[in-house]
């Protein structure tokens, strides 16, 4: 900026900042280490550590009266989970509901995500994004209670179609599907946006009808996004206990059993054992979907 014509442009001064910057450039692992240190410390040590501590607790037991943890190693909690039918029933029921919620959300989310990504003019698209995101801000509890009002006798559902599922698993499934819908729409929308229009046009040019194009072009491309959304709907439903309390009637899900054992039974070891089951389910699910590249699409 100051050099006149023909003047020598000097090298920048070798300040500490420059030297360290150069050093970092030459040693990428140092950069990497620095970048990873804080997140790894937080997530790897603190978070994983607390999960590990919880897992350890599941091998202990409780003094049944006082509720204090007795640090004696035992497999009793897991044995009980395995042997008593009710726990298996609850786990299967919860996994089933989580899967159903995922399917419902996928079916509901796809048309609107497709419309937003491919068909809607830009202003409509922006408006729709706002419209889809707004419910995320309304409190979870308020929305769940709204569903309670809707499915009760002479509630909204009853007034419109004459019959209502009442409080129970159907209501719980619908409510959960409702609560997690935005979490399915957003990744699908992002995934569909990345799908080039030209691909769809080309498929049409080659003679495929919309249904065929959907099955063979669209679906495979958005599968990672779909799976990414499913991770949310599945895991959020797997551990939920509040919705079931509000609209689930007399039913209980996995989250309720865990919660009751922390609260009612004051039996942290047993709750931890039950929680480990959910962790195991989710880790298996995550490992299975890693291959589909879903984790990059979250």
């Amino acid at each position, binding site marked *: 900026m100051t050099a006149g014509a023909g003047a020598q442009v000097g090298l920048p001064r070798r300040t500490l900042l420059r030297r360290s910057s150069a050093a970092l450039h030459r040693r*990428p*692992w140092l950069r*990497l*280490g620095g970048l990873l240190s804080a997140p*790894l410390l937080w997530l*790897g*040590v603190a978070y*994983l*550590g607390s999960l*590990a*501590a919880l*897992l*350890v*607790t599941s091998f*202990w037991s*409780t*003094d*049944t*009266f*006082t*509720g*204090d*943890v*007795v*640090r004696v190693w035992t497999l009793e909690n897991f044995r009980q989970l395995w042997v*008593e039918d*009710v*726990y298996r*029933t*609850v786990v299967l029921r919860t996994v089933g509901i989580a899967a159903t919620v995922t399917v419902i959300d996928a079916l509901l989310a796809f048309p609107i995500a497709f419309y937003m990504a491919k068909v809607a003019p830009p202003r409509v698209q922006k408006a729709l994004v706002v419209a889809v995101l707004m419910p995320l801000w309304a409190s979870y509890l308020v929305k769940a209670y709204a569903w*309670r*009002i809707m499915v*009760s*006798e*002479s*509630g909204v559902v009853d007034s419109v179609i004459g019959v209502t599922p*009442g*409080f129970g698993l159907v209501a719980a499934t619908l409510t959960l599907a409702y609560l997690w819908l935005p979490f399915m729409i957003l990744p699908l929308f992002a995934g569909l946006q990345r799908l080039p229009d030209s691909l769809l046009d080309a498929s049409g040019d080659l003679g495929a009808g919309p249904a065929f194009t959907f099955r063979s072009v669209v679906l495979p491309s958005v599968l990672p996004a779909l799976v990414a959304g499913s991770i949310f709907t599945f895991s959020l439903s797997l551990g939920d206990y509040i919705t079931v*309390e*509000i609209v689930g*009637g*007399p*039913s*209980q899900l996995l989250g309720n*059993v865990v919660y*009751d*054992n*922390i*609260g*009612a*039974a*004051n*039996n*942290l070891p047993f709750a931890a054992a039950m929680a480990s089951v959910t962790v195991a389910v989710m880790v298996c699910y995550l490992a299975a979907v890693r291959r589909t590249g879903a984790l990059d699409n979250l």
Partner: protein
Amino acid sequence: MATRFTQAGSMRSLAGSSVLLAVAACGTSGGEESTDTSSGGGLAAPDLPMLQEVGASEDELNILAWPGYAESGQTVPSVDWVTPFEDKTGCQVNVKDFGTSDEAVSLMKTGEYDVVSASGDASLRLIAAGDVEPVNTELVPNYADVAEFLKQRAWNSVDDQMYGIPHGWGANPLMFNTDEVTPAPDSWSVVFEADSPYAGEITAYDSPIYIADAAMYLKATQPDLGIEDPYALDEDQLAAAVDLLEQQRANISEYWSSATQEVSAFRSGDTVVGTTWQYNASLAQSKGTPVKTVVPKEGITGWSDTWMVATDSEHKNCAYMWLDWIVSPQINAEATEWFGEAPANLKACDLASDENFCETYHANDEAYSEGIYYWNTPIAECLDGRTDVTCTDYSDWTTAWTEIKG
């Protein structure tokens, strides 16, 4: 670029796993040392000192209470006995509500609360765990006016030492919708029998302690089971109660754990009959729902709540000030009249706004009170004194409850 890091990466993961193991090995602590609870017959409470004198206010008090017990004008502006307390003592109050005794017990374990209004199914667990300490009743002048039949009871005292100040007592009557349920029921069979005409519209309390209600019903209907005390059930008796409740489960519309929940279900018509608190019934009636309560012939369970002081509390002076305040005649009248239960302090009867208040709630009626099966905590040593069998304890009941709900 990748190779350099492999070494660092494996070093890091090694360090990481050793840290993890170290953390995990420290693991969880066992809370306070629990003393041997199986010595002798009954409960062995840890040896904890009690406060010897009430000093200056610590300017803070954290209350754990049943909803409606510590009102500060948030529900209805005129219903407030917390703000006057704050003004008088300078103890700034934070109130946390809980829905079931189980929640109360686990919340007390966090050590965040100074006083708790514990029912009988929570109090003994708190005492045994050392989460609450003995209460020095001499530091609570209003204790003298508490009804004698509430003092030194099984759920609020151990070895003649009081662990709290009684707040009041009430029952769990049967509530029914007068328009839908005719004729008016006089027996719990309407909620327990498989062929109840109100199947699918029945409610029950969502807590393992409800098993006692089933046991009480069985005491009357199946006397050969030999149930004397619904809280002292051996394995066969518990199994019978569980069968009854599993049978009931098929007819349940919803289990309730908060007043709002039960009242809303009655109002919408999803539920027409089931166990309740008087508070819920009064609330429903005030909203125009046609409900009535009745004491069925098999009897009723009930609860007597005690204000207890947390062992680890840092605000014990404020805690004792609260104990004295809440059981003072005027405040006890306000609090128990608002909730709908009989007051512990009989002088409150004259100060209630409804002059029939104490009659409605049988506050002076010792015989009526004796007829209630008060919530108690089931323990292995049978509460009815049997020594030839081991009774089931609360954790057995909790496991049973999960099975009942399916």
